[in-house]
């Protein structure tokens, strides 16, 4: 017995191909959406991995430093370093801001870190690590910067000396790493106009600007211009110690909060990404229904176009199961082509999309199974119509 669906496919392959491509684009978008969600979760995981920390010590009662702003003194790290089980402890600052290169601005997360300590980018794609203690930067390639570029962050110009990859904030903004002190200045020091304004206000305050105490005004201005805060202390726990235990010790200080890796992941994924996850989940469901509807419609239309042939086939003795099989095979074949087109399209979409898209093989397999099931179910409408055809209609007119 020849394959009727196969012969039909060979005969009108262009129709199948176009339909497959069209449907494939839809499936590609669906797979991309799943990939976008996975990408967001991966962004969060990567953010936590790349910091190289086991614990995050932040301001008490905050969910910082990523989900909420947190501010602690920059000498807190010394006390943390002295606690049992702590192998490394270092200050970090995070601030999302515009970084200027020439005439363009790039929205980035500026990270201040101490070289050799948690918080430093763990691998480079090009260039080198810092050798100067100020005004050097390592940037993620997503910023579009190259080694040797001069970029401007707040008041100073930095030279990009190294490039890295996949260093992004949980919001998808690429990171730019600069020395901690420079980052502290950038975060807390205002622009020139604001500083001058502040000085004028202070000078106008008679309690501060006292003639009997020369030098008081200058001292106050100097203290206003200094910054001794950071956003978090990243802790690396020593061999043989549990992060949870060390976190408990730190929590016992009533003025600090400490989160383990698992807790940070929950904060980021459950709280920060939750809404986006719901949106994407909703889209996936809608797209699945749309895909099912389109497949059902296409297969149904194709079948209706063959009603006369189906009546003739039934009359001359073709069993119902052969006819149903033909329709089902066409639907599954369409699903297969569409899926392959969709997966390929999704892969090529990945670098174009502004956020990180992660297409997991597991998702692809699940997507494939889903497409096949949807196609099978969607073909049931057409199969029902085909089975209802009365072979007598082939006779007479």
């Amino acid at each position: 017995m020849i394959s009727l669906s196969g012969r039909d496919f060979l005969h009108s392959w262009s129709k199948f191909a176009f339909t497959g491509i069209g449907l494939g684009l839809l499936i590609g978008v669906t797979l991309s959406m799943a990939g976008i969600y996975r990408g967001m979760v991966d962004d969060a995981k990567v953010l936590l991995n790349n910091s190289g920390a086991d614990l995050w010590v932040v301001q008490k009662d905050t969910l910082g430093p990523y989900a909420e702003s947190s501010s602690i003194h920059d000498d807190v790290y010394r006390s943390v370093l002295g606690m049992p089980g702590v192998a490394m402890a270092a200050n970090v600052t995070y601030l999302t801001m515009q970084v200027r290169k020439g005439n363009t601005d790039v929205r980035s997360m500026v990270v201040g870190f101490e070289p050799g300590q948690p918080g430093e980018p763990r691998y480079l794609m090009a260039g080198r690590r810092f050798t100067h203690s100020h005004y050097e930067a390592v940037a993620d390639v997503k910023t579009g910067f190259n080694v040797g570029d001069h970029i401007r962050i707040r008041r100073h110009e930095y030279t990009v000396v190294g490039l890295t990859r996949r260093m992004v904030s949980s919001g998808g903004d690429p990171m730019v790493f600069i020395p901690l002190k420079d980052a502290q200045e950038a975060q807390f020091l205002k622009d020139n106009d604001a500083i001058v304004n502040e000085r004028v206000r202070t000078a106008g305050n008679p309690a501060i600007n006292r003639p009997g105490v020369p030098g008081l005004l200058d001292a106050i201005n100097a203290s206003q211009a200094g910054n001794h805060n950071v956003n978090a202390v990243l802790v690396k726990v020593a061999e043989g110690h549990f992060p949870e235990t060390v976190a408990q010790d730190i929590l016992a200080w009533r003025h600090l909060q400490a989160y383990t890796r698992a807790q940070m992941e929950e904060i980021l994924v459950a709280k920060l990404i939750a809404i986006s996850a719901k949106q994407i989940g909703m889209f996936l469901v809608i797209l699945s229904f749309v895909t099912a509807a389109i497949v059902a419609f296409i297969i149904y239309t194709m079948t209706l176009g063959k009603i006369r042939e189906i009546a003739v086939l039934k009359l001359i003795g073709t069993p119902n199961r052969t006819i149903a099989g033909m329709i089902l095979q066409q639907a599954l074949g369409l699903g297969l082509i569409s899926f392959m087109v969709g997966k390929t399209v999704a892969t090529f979409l990945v670098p174009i999309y502004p956020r990180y898209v992660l297409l997991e093989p597991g998702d692809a397999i699940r997507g494939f199974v889903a497409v096949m099931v949807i196609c099978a179910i969607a073909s049931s409408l057409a199969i029902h119509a085909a089975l209802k055809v009365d072979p007598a209609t082939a006779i007479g007119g």
Partner: protein
Amino acid sequence: MKIPATLSRKILLAVLGIALLAAFLWVATHSGPLAPIKVTVTKVTKAEINPALFGIGTVEARLDYLIGPTVAGRVRRVLVDVGDSVKTGQLLAEMDPVDLDERVSSTVAAASRARSLVATAEAQVQEVKSRRELAVIEARRYVQLEKQEFVSKSELDTKLQEQKATEAQLAAAEASLSAARKDQSRLEADREGLKQQRAYVRLIAPTDGVITARDAEPGSTVIAGQSVLKLIEPSSLWINVRFDQARSTGLRTGLSAEIELRSLGRTRLAGKVVRMELLSDSVTEERMAHVAFDQLPEGVAIGEMADVKVGLPAIHDVLVIPNASLKLHGTQEGVWLRDDGHLRFAPVKTGSESPDGRIEVLEGLHGGEEVVVYSEQEIKEGSHIEVVASLGGKAK
């Protein structure tokens, strides 16, 4: 024989199908989690390291002077302005003497009055002296006469008593004279003191230099020690440089330095480390040193920012790796070695670093090993790697 249409179509579609499948498989293995991680490698070789220390600093004047009055007063006139060059001893400003002149006259008068009083006391002493002389002679004569019984004992006693009286009077007169003399010194000292004070009303340049600030205008009241003018010696400009404590090994006086001033763009000036501060900044964890210019450039402003690079002696013939290959594994610093296609982490101990990123290896490597320099992702034991020439990050 004409190939049946069905067959040729089957062939065409089979070809397309295979192409699609191939694209699909290529996609599956070259992207996403199944793809190998691209890395670059380099060999560990011996080379030279030219370490340097980097700090940022501000231009300061080694010597700067605050010119102001020693007592509260009102500024009478200011003779110089910001930017003026002055010479030692030049009158820069003057305070309002107020009643100082009158008080000086008063003390002068008082001193000369004291001088007159001294003259009077001296005269008095002379007078008493002469009376005493007379009384002594008389007393002696009466002693003789009494012996010859020409005068009575009581007459002699009287004369003796007169002699004693004049002695006492002389002592008193001499004491008065001494007091008058002391008074005169006191009043003369007062006079000199006030004259000195009057002199301090004139603000004089203590040294050659340039005026950097004019803090009070004529008519303003200033208190003792408040600045009216600030003066610096321009040749004494140097840079107060801060170095990260962790990156300041080898810093000492005498090392040559390269100075880049913000205002002069990227031109490099030569200098030398002239002083290391004993006191560090424990809050910012920085050490301070002073760097002087070999040749003071024109138009440098105090407070300007400078980037300073201090060159340390070169280190020859040591094992060198790019600092980009240093990675943290747990809490250990080291490199990933490619050994027969396997990845192995080797802890290393590093030494000095060149500004271009090459760093000395003290322990952990022998030379000739292949280390992983750049990677697309973090690598771990058992990571699937693919060695490429470069990862596409372009350098200018």
